[in-house]
């Protein structure tokens, strides 16, 4: 009983200490298909750009299918982003980091995130601040929100643009 008490006490002391040093990723990795709604705020554009569609997640790959207001497909893998153009996927040059980032966030890849970002908690959400180039030349920070499941991603770009992606887990998808 005494041993159990000491263990509990140690656990209580250690858990906050660990959390204060380096917060852990707390979302479950996403799999399968889910809907999304995206709102993009671009510098110099008075109106926000809203779109929606669905995401299909596999082990090392995701399909980002925007269905409204335009039909557009992006295939994302650690090798980069490819866009569906004229009946084939065409690689988007220089998109390797973005591809890796999207996969890492949605699949909660601890190793990639911890090696490229400083993690902190903010008002129930997690903040990811890029540590090194080229991610820190693209993003100021990335905000991940949700309970145990990731529900919202906000990408704050260095040029002042921001993209909010709401993930709808319960949506019925075709």
């Amino acid at each position, binding site marked *: 009983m005494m041993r159990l008490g000491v263990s509990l006490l140690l656990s209580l002391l250690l858990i906050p200490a660990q959390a204060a040093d380096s917060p852990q990723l707390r979302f479950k990795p996403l799999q399968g298909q889910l809907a999304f709604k*995206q709102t*993009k705020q*671009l*510098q*110099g*554009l*008075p*109106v926000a*750009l809203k*779109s929606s569609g669905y995401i299909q997640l596999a082990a090392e790959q995701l399909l*980002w299918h*925007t269905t409204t*207001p*335009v039909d*557009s497909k*992006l295939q994302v893998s*650690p*090798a*980069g*982003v490819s*866009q569906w153009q004229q009946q084939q996927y*065409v*690689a*988007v*040059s*220089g*998109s*390797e*980091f*973005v591809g890796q980032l*999207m996969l890492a966030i949605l699949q909660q890849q601890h*190793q990639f995130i911890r090696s490229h970002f400083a993690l902190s908690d903010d008002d129930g959400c997690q903040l990811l601040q890029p540590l*090194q*180039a*080229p991610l820190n*030349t*693209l*993003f100021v920070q990335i905000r991940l929100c949700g309970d145990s499941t990731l529900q919202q991603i906000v*990408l704050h*770009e*260095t*040029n*002042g*643009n921001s*993209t909010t*992606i709401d993930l709808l887990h319960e949506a019925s998808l075709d």
Partner: protein
Amino acid sequence: MTKPARLAACGWLVLVLCLLAYLMLQLPQRQWSSSITALLPAAAEPWQQQLLSQVNSSRQLTLKLSGLPLPQLRDAATALLQHNISGLSWYQPGAMLTQLQQQYQQHQSLLLSAQASDLLQQGRYQPLVDAAWQRLYSPAPLLSNALSQDPLLLTQQFMEQQSAGSLTLQQHWFETRQGDAIVLYGETAADPFDRVPASALQQALQQQLATLGNQWPALQIARSGVLFHAVHAADNASFEMQFYGSMSLLAILLLLVLSFRSARPLLLASLVLLPAVIAGLAALLLAFEQPHVLALVFATTLIGIAIDYSFHGMLAANQGKAAFSAMLPSLALGLVTTLLGYLALLWLPFGLLQQVALFMLAGLLAAFISVWLLLPLLLAPQQLRNSQWLQQGCRRINQGYQGLPAKPIWLAGLGISAVMLALLLLQGRFTDDVRLFSQSPASLLQQEAEVRTLGAQQWDSRFLVILADSPQQALQQEQALQAQLAQWQQQGWFLQWQGLSQQLASQQLQALHQQLLQQAYQSAPVQAYLTQLQLAVPAVRSDYLTPANFSSPLLKQHFSIGRQTAAVVLLRDVSAADLLQQAVAQLPAVYLLDPIADTNSSLQHLRAQLLIWLALALLLSIVVLSWRRGIQAALASALLLTLAIGAALCFSLWRQQQLNVFNLVAAILVLALALDYAVFYTSTLRKTEVLQAVTLSAATSCMAFGMLSFSQTPAVASFGFTVFSGVALSALLAPLLTLLSHKESGSGGTL
């Protein structure tokens, strides 16, 4: 010994000491080249030579790390990059990409893809608007101020359409798309053919790679780059030079001990050999800023020839002044004919042969002067105890030769010569391949091939060149060629191409883009797009991106050639070089350069020249010999030379399956040596002494050249084997010349 003779000898020694002092001053600060290309005959066109001297990818190196899971490979790569290796810088692909993006960001709407440009020119704006909407709704980041400067996002899309390549770009390296290997690109500060710094750099890198291997035993490392091959070639040449040189010296020592059983001949031979080597090296350093190590490998043969003079000199001086004076004209005649052989090489447009020839000319001349001035001074008559058994052996051999029937032998010789010449004419095939110059170890070639399969940055040795009057015109012409390049690529003539125009449009094209965009902004589809986004029409830009304010590794593909600019288009995996050559021939100011084929063609030309020189040298020898020895002896000597050279080439053909230019160089040397023997055997000198001297010198030459035939460098091995067989045969056949009467008996043996 007379006073003038003593003074001359002292003067000669002083001169040799001066040359030695020059060598001691120069050798530590001189660089020895191991570059193969530096040796080769120059390409035909001067602008091509100038371009080839500037196109230099030899400083690049590639490492492929594999055999571990990707996270561990990344750790290994990070560990390697953390240790700074002096003189080696690693490419930072991520930083290069960021820099490129920043440049495009500052010049948005000036650079468009070819497809976008076509659509604008055709007035088909709707596809451009659709693509812009698609890009706007993508979650991927946009360039700063993209919408205000380039509302159709055409520069953004141009940037994203740049060839992604077969490798995934990371900040400090590339990764394969399968994630099973990491590829690191580096560049050396020093020329890989500059032996000392290149060797130090390679050792430092090797040490780092060994440390990685200890930390991750399963890590596999494949290397690619001229550095590794150049350092191996230089080390190999250096080793062979020292090894074969030492073995030749050892063989000579052994022969001296066996012949004379005294240390004195060794001292005397050294007094001939050392001035020869000193004079040869000094001439080489005086004439060539950066002599080649391979020249020294060939030049080790000087020891073999110079000792020939020592033997003749020592044996003659040992018999007394009269015998020495009688020997000297024959030695001089031998020297003159040998010098003529090497002079022939000196006039050929071939750096390596010129260096070898100069070394040998100076060395042989010094050897002759040493024999002439020093040996009578340092060797009193009968001071040497000539080996009795060797003398008796030579006497018996000589008697044996004398007993042979002259006529049938010479008839047989004629017959055999005819058969050999016919065989060479009918079966003799030549290979003119530059790869004979060096042979990298199989493991290094395998690693090179392994890295090449990864693709990126592994360009073919053939490339296209566009000649233009200015840098802007070069960009325009390259741009105009793009459609043709794409078509050739589609036809499978090559897998990929790379040129500056893929990253940078000419100023003229950028101005045209601005004009076309302004027209597009006034069109209905683009107006609707701009209205929906509430964007204003951007102003016309004239802050063009030019080679002067653009930074990219591809800028290194444009060169200044005099007043012209040469734009190089690199090609990968060329599979239809002939078709490409034909197609390029139809285009103005576009050329397909193939340095290896050009070099092989130069070698072929050189071979033809050597054959002519060989025939001329043979003819000249007959003329000189008929003047000194009479027509019969000259013709007999010519038959000996033909037999020796023909047989040496036949043996080489049998051994190598194909002959090469180095067999012909060797044939010229065989001619010089065999002529030397012929000179002595057709003289009035005592044949026993001649036989002894020729046998000893031929034995040492056979040792020196025969060992070269074991060289790892095919060129050196070919050379060594041909000389070995030619000299051995000459020494065996030359005593038959004594069966002939000669004119010199009446002229007293003077030159």
